[in-house]
């Protein structure tokens, strides 16, 4: 086997953390030096506190009130503790919405965008230059479009008399009203179309960093295409995969415009993901406090995903 050549890749070996020694010899001087070294970070920390932590705390506080957009609670909102969360727990739409959010994120991002992005990147790095440019420009075009434009394009494509059904009609088939009969499929495909470019670009950059010598060495050792992919390429871009997964998961969890334009969460609540549910409750039904509680839950879900990915991205010990 070629395993002893392949398994601990140089990239992983280089990731060992330097400077762990001397924890027992800590002195006051060293502590001061450490503090001084922190000073350049202060502006960044202040900005993070004001613009990132601030809104989060504010949103959490808002979710504990009965603030409304109209009516008496708009003038004087009061603190109601965890009532919004209790209400959310008992809301029949919430489990549905949570499930749809998970399905949407897994199907359109974690699986489709990620695999398709990686696949196209692998093909593109091997294909001839002209074809590669053509393919990636096509994919990236969807990503360059502003979200609202992309959303209208998808609406026009999937709507009852839209492009897709006209193409089907050309083959003598009558397409269903996709946005009404298969709302989740439509928005998953739309998000796949729009988001794949991101993964493609990330993976293209990572694949270009994989030294060709290692692949070649593996090839000389007799590893075929699939083996080289699973034993060489993927381990070497593992951190990129994790980072990419984290970024697209967080992006997809918060997709709003695309879904709102295409289906507005309907029919009924059949495509109401959590961002849509939060928007509807806060702005359509005027329950700002309740909507904020949903947003806070969404924030927590995003945080959980981030923690999982960050843990996975930690360099492993040899």
């Amino acid at each position, binding site marked *: 086997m070629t395993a002893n050549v392949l398994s601990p890749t140089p990239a992983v070996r280089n990731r060992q953390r330097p400077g762990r020694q001397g924890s027992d010899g800590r002195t006051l001087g060293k502590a001061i030096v450490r503090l001084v070294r922190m000073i350049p970070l202060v502006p960044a920390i202040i900005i993070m506190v004001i613009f990132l932590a601030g809104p989060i705390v504010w949103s959490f506080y808002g979710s504990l009130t009965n603030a409304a957009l109209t*009516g008496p609670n708009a003038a004087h909102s009061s603190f109601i503790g965890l009532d919004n969360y209790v209400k959310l727990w008992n809301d029949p739409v919430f489990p549905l919405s949570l499930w749809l959010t998970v399905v949407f994120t897994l199907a359109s991002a974690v699986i489709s965008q990620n695999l398709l992005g990686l696949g196209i990147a692998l093909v593109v790095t091997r294909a001839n230059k002209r074809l590669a440019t053509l393919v990636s420009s096509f994919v990236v075009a969807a990503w360059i479009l502003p979200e609202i434009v992309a959303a209208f394009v998808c609406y026009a494509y999937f709507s009852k008399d839209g492009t897709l059904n006209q193409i089907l009609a050309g083959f003598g088939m009558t397409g269903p009203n996709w946005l009404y009969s298969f709302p989740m499929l439509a928005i998953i495909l739309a998000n796949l179309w729009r988001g794949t470019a991101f993964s493609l670009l990330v993976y293209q950059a990572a694949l270009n960093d994989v030294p060709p010598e290692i692949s070649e060495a593996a090839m000389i050792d007799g590893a075929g295409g699939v083996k080289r992919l699973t034993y060489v390429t993927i381990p070497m871009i593992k951190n990129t995969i994790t980072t990419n997964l984290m970024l697209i998961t967080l992006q997809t969890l918060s997709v709003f415009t695309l879904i709102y334009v295409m289906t507005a969460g*309907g029919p009924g609540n059949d495509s109401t993901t959590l961002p849509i549910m939060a928007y509807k409750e806060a702005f359509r*039904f005027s329950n700002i406090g309740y909507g904020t509680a949903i947003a806070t839950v969404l924030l927590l879900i995003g945080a959980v995903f981030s923690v999982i990915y960050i843990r996975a991205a930690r360099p492993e010990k040899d």
Partner: protein
Amino acid sequence: MKKRAAVAVSMIAVGTLLGVTACTSTPADSSEKTIKISYIKTDAFTALDTLFNNVKPVFEKAHPGVTVKLEPIAATDDDYKTKLALSHRSAETAPDVFYEDTSNVRSDADAGYLLALDDYVGKWDDWSQFTDAAKQAGQGDDGKIYSISLGTDTRAIWYNNKVLTKAGVDVPWAPNSWQDILDAAQKIKATQPGVVPFNIYAGTGTGEGSNMQGFYELLYGTDLGKDALYDSGSSKWVVGSKGFVDSLNFLKTLYDQKLALTPAQALDPNIWKEVFGTLFPKAKLGGTIEGSYTPSFWVKGGSFEWADYATDMGATAFPTQNGQAPGGVSMSGGWTLAVGAKSANPQLAFDFMAEALSFKNALEYDNANAQIAVRKDVAADPSYTAANPFVKAVTDMVAFTHFRPATSIYNQISVEVQKASEAVITGKMSPAEAAAAYDKAVTEIAGADKVIKK
């Protein structure tokens, strides 16, 4: 990783700084006084924009140093209301004068967005011209006047003479009960495939419109009549009523038997444009419930000009469930003008509003927008009654019309009604289940002591 984080942080920092400078670079209005007017202007609704653009130069000439800033918002009614409510949360963004739906007056007054106008109307000569019903439409829960009516409306069945005649239904049509409507719809279905026999709006897509031009005509025509939604005697919301289930059942029949639009069409917020612009003019729709303002879309200069509407269309009252008294059902709403509670120049704002509501301007607006006049002098004007052939018919429906119980929680209840009708037409719930879900939601919103079982 650390480097990446640092880059990310600095990018966020730059982004926020850019954002901050972008915000502060808007010039602040200084010495000159400005009053800001917010209202809806869409391709289908331009009458108010025309009115304000006529008033603006007159008003600015009469008040030197005052600039009137018109801020038309192109949005659906619901989006407009949301935007308006958000803008009221800060004095910086709140408009001085704005277009306000009668159904929002009470809740927005409770929210502290509206200025009480009692002192201003007291000194306004024209106030005596307004009908009592119009005055009440602008009242808050505390009895003060918060807004002034621009015009009101009624709801009627609008039907296509060609489609009905072809189906063998006599015109002018005057259905006496829900069954008469189903019978006529079945005849249309049998004779004219591809034609939508009879539409009743439903669901959340058309928002409040699906109640006003749909479910309420059914509900208020059941045995509980005017107290079918809100019991005026006890001031409580009605739950568990047979009429509610019956109304949902009627919708179910209409949609299940494919006599109405498809549920997918009904849930499209822009479906009404298709109804006015395509279905009726092309004789693809037998009838629907719509507002008295309907002809305004078809008249010369309207959004969907249609020369033959006067002869091709008819209007009749929506019947009660079994033809019981008073024989017809109609709903009235209408929009008003109001002054923002945070306005820095309330007197100027009121003066602008008074100018916009003057005899001459109100007459022009009511005629252009096919509104039912709320000023007695306008209603008596010959040009008002001659504006279109249906004015008399729809004005007569004032006799049995209903107003929404526009209490401060009304809009939340309205949404629950829309959800119930949507669940039924999409087949998600049976009428009984949808009614039970409605009862539960209403009890939660209003409180158990504010509902009454009937």
